[in-house]
């Protein structure tokens, strides 16, 4: 591990000023950062510990929504009574991710910045455009069984690994950021970037930007929500395909649906295509299959992950069936 200078943040403003210096990383849970530092994939020169900042509260908002501080731990968020009652899909997604130990460490803000598990990104002996722009993509034509089929480019096919962000996408969360030029509110659909020709750029964050909190809109009236995750083993494994569903049904017809997929996209994959197909339709397998077809219409499988197209379709259909049962 490369050596670095360590400091504790005393307040947000001084952390942001110090964080704008090149080669600086904020640390909260450390579960991604320390892992990648040991692999020499992350090589920060300065680390600022933000655990002392007052960002660890979950608070109801006046409009009926919810404010989640950036350093709220995944376990605390998953077991929060308001989240369990009004945003079940988020609680389920969090508990489907990682292990009990990691969920006690990993934070809301940190999970928004979780890095891919693509084995070539994690191996400094191999070319990777995300880690070393211009070096090439080893995964295209390589070991790509677990990698993305949606949102890929000729430069990168790395899967976004988060479960939490998939639920956040279906819940239409907003990411609140404080930077050297003030505060910004970023819809989660815009927060993560497609790889395109710059896979090293994964989010809209600029140097010094500090995620302070995430807000959720008030729960959809009459909604039911569900997170379904399919993987190689039953627990403690990343998704091959997952689906977050938030849906409201009136008189046997779908009033509103919010759909996002995980394990298949280069970013948490909101599918407005599936949502449009579902709107106004009678609840049932027929509409669900058409929605799943729409969600996967643009899928571009690689040499080893063609199975994910059908797996993701079935995952979404099953999630919709379960959520409307």
């Amino acid at each position: 591990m490369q050596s670095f200078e360590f400091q504790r943040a005393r307040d947000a403003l001084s952390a942001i000023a110090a964080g704008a210096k090149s080669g600086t990383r904020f640390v909260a849970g450390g579960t991604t950062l320390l892992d990648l530092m040991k692999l020499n994939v992350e090589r920060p020169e300065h680390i600022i510990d933000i655990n002392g900042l007052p960002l660890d509260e979950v608070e109801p908002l006046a409009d009926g929504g919810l404010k989640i501080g950036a350093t709220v731990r995944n376990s605390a968020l998953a077991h929060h009574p308001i989240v369990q009652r009004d945003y079940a899909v988020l609680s389920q997604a969090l508990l489907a991710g990682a292990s009990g130990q990691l969920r006690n460490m990993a934070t809301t803000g940190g999970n928004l910045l979780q890095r891919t598990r693509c084995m070539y990104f994690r191996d400094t002996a191999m070319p990777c455009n995300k880690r070393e722009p211009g070096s090439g993509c080893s995964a295209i034509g390589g070991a790509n069984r677990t990698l993305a089929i949606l949102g890929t480019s000729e430069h990168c096919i790395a899967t976004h690994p988060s479960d939490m962000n998939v639920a956040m996408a279906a819940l239409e969360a907003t990411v609140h950021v404080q930077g050297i030029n003030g505060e910004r509110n970023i819809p989660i659909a815009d927060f993560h970037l497609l790889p395109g020709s710059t896979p090293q750029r994964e989010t809209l964050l600029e140097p010094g930007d500090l995620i302070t909190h995430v807000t959720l809109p008030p729960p959809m009236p009459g909604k039911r929500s569900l997170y379904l995750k399919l993987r190689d083993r039953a627990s403690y494994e990343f998704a091959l395909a997952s689906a977050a569903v938030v849906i409201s049904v009136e008189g046997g017809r779908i009033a509103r649906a919010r759909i996002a997929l995980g394990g298949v996209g280069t970013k948490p994959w909101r599918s407005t295509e599936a949502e449009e197909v579902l709107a106004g339709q009678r609840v049932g397998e027929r509409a669900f299959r058409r929605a799943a077809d729409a969600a996967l219409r643009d899928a571009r499988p690689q040499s080893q992950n063609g199975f994910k197209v059908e797996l993701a379709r079935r995952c979404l259909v099953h999630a919709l069936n379960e959520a409307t049962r």
Partner: protein
Amino acid sequence: MNARINPPAAFESTPAAEGAVPLTLRINGNEHRLRLDPRTTLLDCLREIVLLTGTKKGCDHGQCGACTVHVNGARVNACLTLAVMHEGDEITTIEGVGQPGPLHPVQAAFVAHDAYQCGYCTSGQIMSAVALLEEPCGPTDADVRECMSGNICRCGAYPNIVAAIQQARSKS
């Protein structure tokens, strides 16, 4: 990281401590004044500096759970956190939960159920299980397996581990 074992001194410290950070860690109720290279993980600090070697290093990447300790009562992977991030925290290791005479109920249950073979993962399993007693976890064996999935046992002692934990839960 290349921390070596140092003889106990006024400061327990990593060698070549340029840029070292002074801090006090509270481990199993005892205060340790340290001066650490900031790269030192909590795990390496416990094992190599404070010489509490009950906590084990398996994968060193948060995948196996052998390094599980408690920070302020919550179980965490000591390999994925820096020691310098824990000034003021209450850290508990396997050495802090029971003693050869008065075993912790989870330790006694592990002995009663032979919940190990080689034993390398056992301290991490026990630290996870002790934390589990206070966590939301359903009643079934499947619930226990899900909650314990962050602790790998390469010998495959899982059935006995689950039985031991269920016995300890029934008594707590």
